[in-house]
């Protein structure tokens, strides 16, 4: 594993269903300063795909590969 930067913010979306994980993630990223790192914890299966895909499409970069943690996913995204 690469050296991990500590996340600046964490968005805990456990329990939320689509489309709210995507909306919340994009909004959180928009509100943060450039280069800050956001950790997203989500367990809505739809969001396993649409959160990373839309974050990339909206021009954000991932700090590392998504982490599958049991029935949830962790995403690390730079604002």
């Amino acid at each position, binding site marked *: 594993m690469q050296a991990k930067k500590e996340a600046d913010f964490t968005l805990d979306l456990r*329990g939320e269903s689509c489309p709210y994980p995507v909306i919340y993630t994009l909004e959180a990223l928009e509100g943060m300063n450039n280069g800050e790192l956001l950790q997203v914890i989500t367990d809505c*299966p739809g969001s396993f795909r*649409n959160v990373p895909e839309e974050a990339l499409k909206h021009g954000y970069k991932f700090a590392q590969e998504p982490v599958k943690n049991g029935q949830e996913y962790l995403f690390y995204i730079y604002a």
Partner: protein
Amino acid sequence: MKTMIHTIFQRYWNPYVVLLIAGLLSALYFGLTSTVWAVTGEFTRLGGDLLLLFGVDISGWEYFDMVHLKGTTWSRPDGWIVWGMFIGALMMVLLSNNFKIRLPQQKRRYVQGLVGGIIAGFGARLALGCNLAAFFTGVPQFSIHSWIFIVATGIGTFFGAKLTKMRWWKGRPSLTRGAAKPSKIKKNVIQPYIGGAIAIVYIGLMIYFFATGQHLLGLGALFGLAFGILIERGQICFTSAFRDLFLVGRSVMAKAIIAGMAISSIVTIIVISIYGLTPITQIAAPSTFVGGVLFGLGIVMASGCETGMMYRLMEGQVLFLPVFAGNIIGATFLAYAWDHLGVYNVLVKSGTKVNLIDTIGPVGAILATLAMLGVLYALTIYGEKRYHRNLTMKRGVKEHAS
């Protein structure tokens, strides 16, 4: 072998592949049974069953005659489509070890789910079908009511998306400073064993249906299972098809659904021509439009339609319990309002059944359908492009301002 298991159970399948298979299977199901893949008709019957259980006299309700409320859900092929879908989805969720009780942090979601579910259930039955019979399996039957329904659903979804963006509706997420710890993973993996056990019992049941000559029930159970597996593995979400285009410029689901309808239309026209089957045509009336708008609005409010909520519920997303209840309440209320509140006279009576095969012939019907789907596809791409263009412009303004 290990990679195959990984691909089937650990990863979600490509929605294009899933919807192409679903389109093919629904055409095949029509060829075998002369009925289509549908769910809300059965939801209405479930509502009727419940009313009977509570001793309500529904003998005079016209709508229940129309949807052939007979027997129990276990003796109806449409019933087995619904239960097969639930079980197919549950099986796949368990086999991929992905079941988890998921409780929304925002308590308002329960109310939104119930209200949206009622509106969607009511709207779907008013239009005589949800995103399946009036959309995904309605277009390939060349019934013009599905064209009206698609436009109306798009309009309803647009307003739903506006509502979703409002602060009081979506609520505030729990954004905290610093890193937080993820959930602990359980060491013992037992879900796949339960999934396997359910699969064995269900296969036994299907064998029983066919062995005892109950072919329609067997086919319902078999195709329902297949549809359930497909929508869960593809995470097929009709609600998101229009909504996410408006919300975040996401187009993949809309495009996959259009592709699925195109293949289903082609196979269906071949099946109809070869076997001389009569396509299933529903009445096209003001009710189709009103129902479609209500349906589009309701599914976005509830975060899921009558199809999508099925596998989400099986994943353990508790939000979809009130949505399911709402769907049945809405459908049952429509059945009441149909004759008791004059819905039929005001919105339905003036309509007629129009099928493209009757009006412009089979070749015209398939060409017109493919052209319509082509226009939908182009509009989808346009919508996505427009969203991202606006986004770039907004960013540009923001950068100059700061």
